[in-house]
């Protein structure tokens, strides 16, 4: 009975409303208002953004978890093959110093495990930088010990450094702390940004829904007033707008969430190609993908509550 420019969505919204409010539970006209399509698009877009923000946050979280637990307690002790004033030390002296340090580490409670790297391992470690067929006889080999601490507190590190230096003055302790801290700080910033995006999404949605509802109420002012005067309690009237908003948001959000998940999966798939030790494999597992069902539900909750609240507040201006 109403000319409708968008019969597919309208038909679906109408059917869903009938389902929720009963076959005759919806008393407002069903015109194709552009404002409903705008709302649908907006909620879809907001859900899309929310998915990307959440997927990003989840991935970053997983990455930092791994980095922190994997690297935070690890240090490397290097026994240099030359003194600060350019004097080359003999391989024997390097080896001796390395063994002395290893002996000192043995039985130390702060040390969880350590491993003295042999020549082959060191070669494997440095070959990416200097080439496979480089003759190692030409450069002096340092001694390397990979150490895992029980807990990398500053105090432990301090005492350890002193002890190591007292045994071998040419040794140097490398923690991964500094650059790890930088990365963690950067990741925190990214997560804060994602949270900000999520907040903007929520606030935008609430604002758009409430202004959409207000304009719908203005369009249907006459109908609303009739319902009011013939005895419809406020919640009866609110329900009409509320379910309309919920259903429009549900459709928009399902579309937006699906699109967001598709794009996120694609991005992870593409970036997963050059996986390295530092960037652990990223992506969403099925459980996480399933958890995104919460998003449309959340969108419905937000829009339903906003619509209800807006209608009740507008109605309270009526006598």
């Amino acid at each position, binding site marked *: *009975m109403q000319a409708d420019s968008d019969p597919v969505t309208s038909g679906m919204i109408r059917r869903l409303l009938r389902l929720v409010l009963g076959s005759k539970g919806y*008393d407002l006209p069903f015109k194709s208002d552009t404002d409903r399509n705008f709302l649908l698009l907006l909620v879809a877009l907001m859900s899309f953004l929310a998915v990307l923000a959440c997927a990003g946050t989840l991935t970053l979280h997983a990455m930092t978890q791994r980095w922190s637990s994997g690297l935070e307690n690890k240090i490397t002790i290097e026994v240099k093959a030359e003194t600060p004033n350019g004097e080359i030390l003999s391989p024997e002296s390097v080896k001796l110093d390395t063994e002395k340090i290893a002996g000192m580490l043995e039985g130390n409670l702060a040390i969880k495990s350590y491993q003295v790297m042999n020549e082959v391992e060191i070669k494997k470690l440095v070959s990416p930088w200097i080439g496979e067929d480089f003759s190692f006889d030409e450069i002096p080999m340092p001694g390397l010990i990979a150490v895992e601490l029980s807990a990398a507190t500053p105090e432990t590190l301090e005492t350890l450094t002193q002890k190591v230096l007292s045994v071998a003055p040419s040794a140097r302790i490398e923690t991964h702390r500094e650059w790890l801290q930088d990365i963690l700080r950067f990741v925190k910033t990214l997560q804060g940004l994602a949270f900000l995006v999520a907040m903007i999404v929520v606030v935008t949605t609430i604002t758009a829904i409430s202004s959409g509802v207000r304009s719908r109420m203005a369009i249907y002012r006459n109908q609303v007033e*009739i319902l*009011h*005067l*013939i005895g*419809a*309690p*406020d919640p009866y009237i609110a329900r009409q707008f509320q379910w309309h908003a919920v259903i429009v948001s549900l459709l928009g959000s399902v579309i937006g969430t699906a699109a967001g998940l598709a794009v996120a999966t694609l991005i992870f798939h593409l970036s997963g190609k050059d996986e390295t030790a530092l960037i652990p494999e990223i992506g969403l597992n099925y459980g996480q993908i399933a958890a995104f069902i919460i998003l449309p539900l959340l969108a419905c909750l937000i829009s339903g509550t906003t619509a209800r609240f807006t209608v009740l507040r507008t109605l309270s201006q009526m*006598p």
Partner: protein
Amino acid sequence: MIRFDKVGFRYDSGPDVLNDIDFELKAGSYHFLTGPSGAGKTSLLSLMYLGHRPTRGNLFMFNQNVGTLPRERLYEIRQKIGIVFQDFRLLGHLSAFDNVALPLRILKRPEKEIRNNVTELLDWVGLGDSKDKLPPTLSGGQQQRIAIARAVITRPKLLLADEPTGNLDDAIGFRLMNLFEQLNRMGTTIVIATHNTHIMEKYGHPRMILAHGNLTLDEHRNKAEETAQGPLTANIKTGTLKHAS
């Protein structure tokens, strides 16, 4: 049932439309509300159906002070009132049937009961064939009958009708007036705004006359008229809804 206690009313910052209105209507009474156009009949009715609040004074509906009742409970009073608006105020996108069914749906009556009652009433007001039509496609008289059917479908305790016979030819007009008589006999309190002297004289109920924002009750004159119209009154008392058709 209804008590106006020095009620004054004006629209926003406009001039006073009603001054110190003071009257009381007993349950089961039947009054005509008359007066020239612009006298404030519609405004007075709208105070009764809580479309507006009095600017001054106290208004008691069903023995409750409307001014002190919390807003969330006013709908309980509205649900006891049937209103026939002067301009009908039907929902243009709903069929005649759904318009009449609306008050019952608001009361959450079972759909089966709604179907039976609404169909019966629409048949009775002569709109049985038009029940699926939209009000804008119907004539003024037909729309008015839908409006009346919507007002009485819940058997309200109070019926307020604003010039309900304005668009009806006499046969249907009298038929609906007889419906009001019957509702009144079953206990509905009725106030009908009209300046149709023909109808007022025929039915002879007491008149409330509005002029310049002041109300006077004219019970006495109408008592006399009622006796003068003995045969008709008797006819109404014994008659059924059919007799005017």
